[in-house]
């Protein structure tokens, strides 16, 4: 508490001084100072040689600095603890989306009632009919496409976001989600779902490939901005016009138009790759030259009378 007060006072003082943008480094420095003070008496060699994992509760707190995570991870009731471990495997964790972002509540307290305070917008189990709005707070384009789709208003919001993307173990969207057992097949024939999967792959896989190639090439200094821009534009076009519309004809039209521009992006990727390969060939030529020169010098040195 005192540490928080101290931080608050310092922040206020600096804000009045008009140097608000210096808050970032100062705050970090204060936190480090607190850490150092706590461990001032620990001997260095012990730290270097030690390798003992601590219990999971403390670990969670350190990893996520979030009391929802640290507390729920240790609950005996699996229904209450499993979501933490599912969330750890999700794409939301590296994206810094924590429990409170969907469930509300107060993650900074360890007091149960305060953590689950409804006045802090705590919602234990979101209404299935409102889930699209909850996810749509961040994923607006997807929500806008979903609501008028056959799964949205027309289908009484069934399935909703969680049915395909999961609630806690949210993995990166992939074509296989279109064919989830016991989910889609209740209403759709497998052949229809296969068509959707193939179409999604056709539309998105090249974009993933272009970006991966561009990032690999970029560090060599070969320009890839145009490749990345075109890949991003293609992706945006797909997301805005084909994602979550759930109408095959609309998706076919979008993917067909995208496939018109993919060859030109692919050509740019190939050109950039060729440039990288050329540099490597020249590099090997010089490596060879230097090694040969080193070999000649070594032989010359061996031939010297004093050697």
């Amino acid at each position, binding site marked *: 508490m005192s540490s928080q007060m101290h931080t608050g006072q310092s922040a206020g003082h600096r804000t009045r001084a008009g140097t608000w943008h210096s808050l970032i480094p100062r705050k970090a420095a204060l936190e480090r100072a607190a850490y150092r003070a706590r461990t001032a008496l*620990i001997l260095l060699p012990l*730290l270097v040689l030690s390798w003992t994992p601590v219990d999971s509760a403390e670990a969670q707190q350190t990893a996520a600095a979030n009391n929802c995570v640290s507390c729920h991870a240790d609950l005996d009731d699996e229904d209450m603890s499993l979501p933490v*471990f599912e969330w*750890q495997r999700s*794409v939301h964790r590296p994206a810094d989306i924590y429990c409170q972002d969907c469930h509300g509540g107060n993650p900074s307290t360890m007091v149960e009632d305060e953590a689950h305070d409804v006045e802090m917008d705590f919602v234990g189990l979101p209404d299935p009919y409102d889930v699209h709005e909850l996810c749509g707070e961040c994923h607006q384009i997807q929500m806008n496409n979903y609501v008028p789709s056959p799964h949205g208003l027309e289908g009484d919001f069934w399935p909703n976001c969680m049915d395909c993307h999961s609630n806690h173990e949210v993995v990166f969207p992939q074509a296989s989600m279109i064919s989830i057992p016991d989910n889609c097949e209740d209403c759709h024939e497998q052949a229809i779902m296969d068509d959707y999967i193939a179409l999604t792959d056709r539309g998105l896989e090249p974009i993933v490939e272009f970006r991966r190639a561009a990032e690999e090439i970029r560090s060599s200094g070969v320009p890839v901005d145009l490749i990345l821009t075109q*890949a991003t534009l293609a992706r945006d076009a797909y997301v805005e016009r084909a994602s979550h519309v759930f109408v095959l004809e609309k998706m076919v039209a979008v993917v067909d138009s995208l496939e018109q521009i993919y060859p030109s992006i692919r050509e740019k990727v190939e050109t950039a790759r060729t440039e990288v390969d050329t540099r490597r060939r020249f590099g090997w030529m010089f490596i060879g030259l230097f090694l040969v020169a080193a070999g000649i010098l*070594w032989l010359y040195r061996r031939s010297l009378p*004093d050697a």
Partner: protein
Amino acid sequence: MIRRLSNEVYNWLDDRTEISVIIGFCHRQLTKPVPRHLNWLFSFGTVTLMFFLSQAVSGVFLMIYYEASADTAYESVKYIMEQVRFGWLMRQVHTYGANFMIAFLLLHSVRVFFYGGYKKPRELTWLFGVGLLAVTLAFGFTGYLLPWDQLSYWGTTVGTEIAAATPLIGEYLLILMRGGEIISDVTLTRFFVLHVVLLPWAFIALVTVHLVLIRYKGISPLEGTDVPEKSPEELKQAGGKPFYPQHVMKEAIVVLLVLASMIFMIIYYPLPLHEKADPFNTPVGVKPEWYFLSSYQALKYLPKTIGIIGSGLVVLAICLLPFWDRTPARHPSRRPIATSLGILFIVLNIALALLGKISETEMTFMGTRYHFDIYGWPHAIGTVEEPAALPDTGGEGTE
């Protein structure tokens, strides 16, 4: 005919410049014998000097296009990397060259320590060498900021914060280094001036004295300081080989091998330019460059003031090493305490650097995922696999 002509040119030049004196001096220096124990490890100093020259050449090339302003620095480096013919090569040579130069300078220092090369009568050579190490590290620190990308911006933020912990003058030092409260345009300008004007001249001055002292006093023998050092003639009689060509060839071979390995690194592991610096967006796990990692990590375990004073004392101890270690023995096996302490110091530094490297990261061992806190201390965060690999389409969810 050619010989006669060249003789005439030489004599004409000698009449006007007395060049024969300089040539005679150089010839004496080149043929001066060096001790028999000189092995391949004795070429690290030359490799470092070669990298300084390489840095000067590539640095001048970069300076033609580089613009030292917060608005344009990043774009100018990007331009050098992507548009200027062979600009990518010059930048990679300069960036990798900096790392290689520091690495070989550290290796050279370690070699001198273990061979007792700092002992009487070479105390001044050691002192100037420590000065060169300080200047080279300052080169690294100031040059790191110049590309003005996220890593360099926040790395420098962390680095300058360490200086702020110096007792009494910390705040003043911070303002002096940054030119204000935060890293800004002003910081970039003063780092640039230090990097391209003051430090190069400081290096040239120091290295000149360092080399003159080495040539004047000769390479350190392995015998103790209580044994009178051999004159060049005695060295020759004891089997010492001339500096040229024997030792120069050895150094040239090492230089060529190091250059070949640098080219390999450049073509297969080029050092990227990261996102442009964003003062409002702190990346996770900001760390300084590898050569500052051990001291950065050590400071985490100690109260700020004690850490800074301790670092200062370590630097002072290194500077004054020849004055407090006055034992006559030079051979590492004849001074076990110094050798053991040296090994311990190196191991401790490597361990701290590794801890610094893994701190604030996550790794999976034997099916258990660990988070390493700022001390590099592991915390189990569950028996989970790696987080889902993210196919990158350039944004959030798609289908």
